[in-house]
């Protein structure tokens, strides 16, 4: 049973108590932060790159429906077949149809968070199709029947000993070793066999270029190239927000992405796919399909403020710099996208009912917003979602799925009373005076508040009294 956002609090507590997990995340986050810092040594340059990346994403989203139509037309002209899915069920049905129409039983997959979102592996297994993860981190996660704990480095919750133990359990003939090179070679050998056997290769998309009908993939390992080159059929899946208008938009976004994610000036491979194998070509997939998935994204889109959520290019910098994520890791959130970006996108994908705790899992320190390469105002959106979780839909503002799910009559009453109190000076004076008199009556145990805090004790004299004495 995988974690759930509804159980965020107990999951976070369990993660906090796991010393090995915390050490693994601490190490990984320090590493990724240092890498990013080294890639942005000049603050002016960093600001300029972020300005450019933000401007591109905002412009592309402002034209989203038109760009999707242009992307579709140009992909079709290039020989790429385009499919649309409202939700996970439709997307999985499209995959199943394509794979079964080729009699496929084995698919290899490059890293794709959207495929996690629709639980593709699980659904294909039900149809008798095995879908093997080929990114090293994802392969490790799949062997352990887990989910990724980070969107860029899916297996960072494990250290090399835990990976070696997992290989020892699942890979026949594996000789236990803590040598990372040999661990990687083990994965390479297993997967190399699968690349040539698989009938279908599956990938995500980093940027889909409307102008040219091109799918761009960013990677270091080469498994993405394998999945999109060796099998006879390639199916790419992406959220509808990943489209960019111009080919010239790609280099600045690519640079912002790799520098923010892993501090690399560029990744080992950048793979631009503009169609299936042509008649005179000797390799490459004979069919290329693109599946465009909504799954709640249009809900974020129709609200001008929340639309900014869709600017995300999935670099993971927000989670690397989040004090909460660093301590509890990715699994505690119980969502496909963890950390700050997960807290603002998951309510649209899964509804506020299931995810209402997530926007509160933040100290609002603002680090996520400060490192975001496309300047998504994450802290601001967290506050907005907190409010929406507490109140009914109102006229003129598009309602969210699960809006008002965290509403509490008692809380509403407390806030109303507080509002009244602070707007009536006489009442405020009276009540604060009473509080100073009754200060010893505050109980030591105040429910959840005192579980990890001492009970508050009002001061002996109010600020007004103190100021009056001082000004005498």
């Amino acid at each position, binding site marked *: 049973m995988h974690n759930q956002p509804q159980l965020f609090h107990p999951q976070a507590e369990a993660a906090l108590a796991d010393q090995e997990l915390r050490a693994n995340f601490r*190490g*990984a986050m320090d590493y*990724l932060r240092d890498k990013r810092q080294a890639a942005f040594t000049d603050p002016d*340059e960093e600001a*300029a790159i972020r*300005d450019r990346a933000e*401007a591109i994403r*905002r*412009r592309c*989203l*402002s*034209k989203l*429906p*038109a760009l*999707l139509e242009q992307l579709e037309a140009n992909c079709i002209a*290039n020989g790429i077949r385009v499919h*649309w*899915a409202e939700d996970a069920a*439709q997307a999985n049905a499209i995959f199943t149809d394509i794979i079964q129409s080729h009699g496929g039983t084995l698919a290899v997959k490059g890293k794709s968070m959207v495929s996690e979102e629709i639980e593709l592996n699980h659904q294909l297994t039900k149809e008798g199709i095995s879908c093997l993860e080929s990114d*090293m981190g994802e392969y*490790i996660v799949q062997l352990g029947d887990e989910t990724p704990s980070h969107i860029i*480095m*899916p*297996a960072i919750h494990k250290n*090399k000993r835990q*990976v070696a133990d997992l290989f020892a359990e699942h890979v026949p003939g594996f000789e236990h070793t803590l040598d*990372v090179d040999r661990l*990687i*070679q083990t994965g390479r050998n297993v*997967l*190399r066999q699968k*690349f*040539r056997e698989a009938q279908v290769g599956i990938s995500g998309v980093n940027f889909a270029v409307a102008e040219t009908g091109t799918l761009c993939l960013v990677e270091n*390992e*080469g*498994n993405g*190239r*394998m999945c999109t*080159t*060796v099998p006879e059929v390639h199916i790419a899946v992406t959220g*509808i927000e990943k489209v960019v208008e*111009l080919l*010239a938009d790609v*280099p*600045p976004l690519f640079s912002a992405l790799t520098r923010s994610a892993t501090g690399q*000036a*560029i990744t*080992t*491979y950048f793979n*631009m796919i*503009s169609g*299936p194998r042509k008649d005179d*070509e*000797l*390799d*490459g997939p004979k069919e290329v399909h693109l599946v465009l998935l909504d799954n709640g994204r*249009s809900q974020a*889109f*129709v609200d*001008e403020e929340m639309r900014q959520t869709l600017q995300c290019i999935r670099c993971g910098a927000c989670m690397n710099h989040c004090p909460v994520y660093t301590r509890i890791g990715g699994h505690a959130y119980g969502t496909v996208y963890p950390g700050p970006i997960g807290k603002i996108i998951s309510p649209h994908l899964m509804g506020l009912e299931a995810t209402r705790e997530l926007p509160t899992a933040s100290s609002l320190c603002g680090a996520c917003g400060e490192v975001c390469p496309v300047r998504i105002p994450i802290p601001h959106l967290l506050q907005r979602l907190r409010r929406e979780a507490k109140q009914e839909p109102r006229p003129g503002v598009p309602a969210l799925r699960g809006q008002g799910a965290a509403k509490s009559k008692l809380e509403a009453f407390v806030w109303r009373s507080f509002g009244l109190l602070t707007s009536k000076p006489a009442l405020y004076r009276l009540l604060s005076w009473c509080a100073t008199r009754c200060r010893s009556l505050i109980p030591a145990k105040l429910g959840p508040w005192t579980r990890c805090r001492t009970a508050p004790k009002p001061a002996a004299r109010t600020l007004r009294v103190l100021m009056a004495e001082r000004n005498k």
Partner: protein
Amino acid sequence: MSTARNAILNRLRQAGAQPLPVNNPDYPLWHPDSPAEPLDKLTELLEQNHAEVLRLNRHELVTTLRAHIEQAALKHIATGTGGEFLAEITRALAGCAEQRPFNQPLEQWKDELFDRVDAGITGCHGAIAATGTLVLWPGPAEPRTLSLVPPSHIAILKASTLYTNLPAMMADQGWAKGIPTNLLLVSGPSKTADIQQTLAYGAHGPKRLLVLILEDA
């Protein structure tokens, strides 16, 4: 699934988002201070990313290539069936390694390419100095898997095809008007840091990348 398509597009259109004009704030791109710098930068970055780089003149290509193949004990080498350097590659391989021209569809020799071939040799469409990147345009004469499946990739680059940065190359060559079915940027041998942030080379693609830069070509 045209119902899904129309429903999604209708929802998005109902938002009434106002299209923003193209406004691209300037951001700094790398530019060289001297004419020799781009080639040095390319070499330095490729080496930083674990590629081996040799700079030579074109008349040395055959001997250099042969020396590398002998030294690395490469026995079975896949090559294209065309491309600018095919004659020189063929001469370099003669008598020192078996040449396997990629002259049939991948399906017909997949096992051999995966299991038996030690290296693939390709030319390059060009390169980018700012990031230390080779640009490959695979096609019928030099298929995509030639630079992907064999454990070693040997790439031959003409120094005259070097650009300072990617946007310049894209704009100058009009990529938006036409690019091959698969265009690749390659900046080193395959690598991963997925196990405990420890960098390891040869994840799924080539473990070794040798770049032969022809300085006078």
